[in-house]
């Protein structure tokens, strides 16, 4: 069972990153972020250490090989 660190302080994050968000608007989004974090945060431990992000891979002509047509997909 993984320990889930305490929730983030979205108000403080907003003050630093997005001070233009009015207080009333912030009050509307914080509960949604709290709810999302409650589900998402524990999931982050599911990816084995060596798992790379599933970015779209770009392959130049010089790099591509026969059968590489779908290099853009994992």
């Amino acid at each position, binding site marked *: 069972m993984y320990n889930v660190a305490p929730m983030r302080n979205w108000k403080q994050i907003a003050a630093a990153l997005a001070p233009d*968000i009015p207080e009333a608007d912030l009050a509307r989004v914080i509960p*949604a972020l709290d709810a999302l974090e409650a589900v*998402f945060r524990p999931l*982050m431990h599911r*990816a084995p250490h060596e798992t*790379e992000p599933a970015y779209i891979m770009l392959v130049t002509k010089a790099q591509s090989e026969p059968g590489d047509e779908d290099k853009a997909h994992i």
Partner: protein
Amino acid sequence: MLTIGEAASLQRDRKLSAVELTRHYLDHIEKLNAKLNAFITVTSERALADAARCDEERKHGKVRGPLHGIPVAIKDVFCTRGVRTTCGSKLFSDYVPDHDAAVVERLQAAGAVLLGKTTLHELAYGITSNNPHFGTVHNPWDLERLPGGSSGGSGSAVASGMCLMAMGTDTGGSIRIPASFCGTVGLKPTTGRVSRYGILPLDFTLDHAGPLTASVRDAAVVLNVIAGRDTRDDSSSARPVANYLPPAEISLRGVRVGLPENFFFDRLDPEVERAVRGVADAAKGLGAEIVSVKVPDMEGINATARVILLSEASAAMERFLDRRGDFGADVLALFDQGRLIPATYYINAQRLRRVYMLEFQAVFERADCLLTPATPTPAPRIGQTELVVGGNREDVRLASTRLVRGINLLGLPALSLPCGLSGEGLPIGAQLIGRAFEEELVLRVGAALEDVIGFRGRRPPAL
């Protein structure tokens, strides 16, 4: 209600010209659009000019493709040269592109006639299509109900017979939700199957383009036209394009249709569950083997998809977010959320994406495609913010995307097709999900089921 195939035959047999067909749809739009608000922009002059050219070409033996002389509509996120492309937003209300989206290029090369641009949820970022700048779109089956979104105008236009096909985009269900609510077919192809070039982006790794149509075979005809490699879209696949049109006679013998034993049938309107399980029975009657499958953690997949969408959408719109007064309150709230999500969350969400994609492959070792509901309920009322489903109170947006959103993260093809009407006369949508790049199988199963379900051709009584 005509299909693309029928309209093409009528023109081929000289029973109807492209101009006559186009005039019919333009008249229909004029009659109905005030009630439905499915179109933001109607391009009447251009449509009639295109149709006249199609007729002239046919007279000289030239038929451009399977959509020659077929009147279509395009969601107003696809750039159309010389025609304003608003994205349903005040920010783009006067934007007139100097180029066509790749999809528009291909449709036109195949002979399609552009009727106009359909209304959508603001910036394609929602499921109601209640647009604060361009008005509310209405469901043709009940004008007090949502058409779904964000491709609500496309769904409403096809369901009401205002066009033979309407293009949509789908980031978290935005083709399949309007298809389900409006009683049309809606296809979200595999990631990379259809070029995103020229589509104003909501998101960079979850956006997909696909058609809403009156029949599964029509969706296949359109996919034949729009699928394929486009070097202007880095994610566009070079994998060869199949012929997606199913044969006239279809047996599902040997096809394993997976029915999830977890998640997809939890918390449903009972009529939706009954209708979709009825589709499973129909598949069995056609020779398919119904297999019970366990799907991975869909709640986790949905949460992961939401982290990616919130982050990417806010990044895409960053340069506009100081114009707070130009956004509707609902999309502004989503952009605000996305601005606060840490970069580590986004990167880990993309790592989890890989984990989930690999886990889901195990499901397709037991089944060739999955059958699920598309939405847990029929269309909610306009203005409704919560639903009660299976005894639980749920936000309308989260409920409506619950069964479809995760498929965008996984990159798999998914088809919504109507499978019945509720007791209140509202369409119910089933969803077929396939392996990556197996649109041919998904469409074949869908067409076979559509033939026996008997929904095709039904018109909304309200109109």
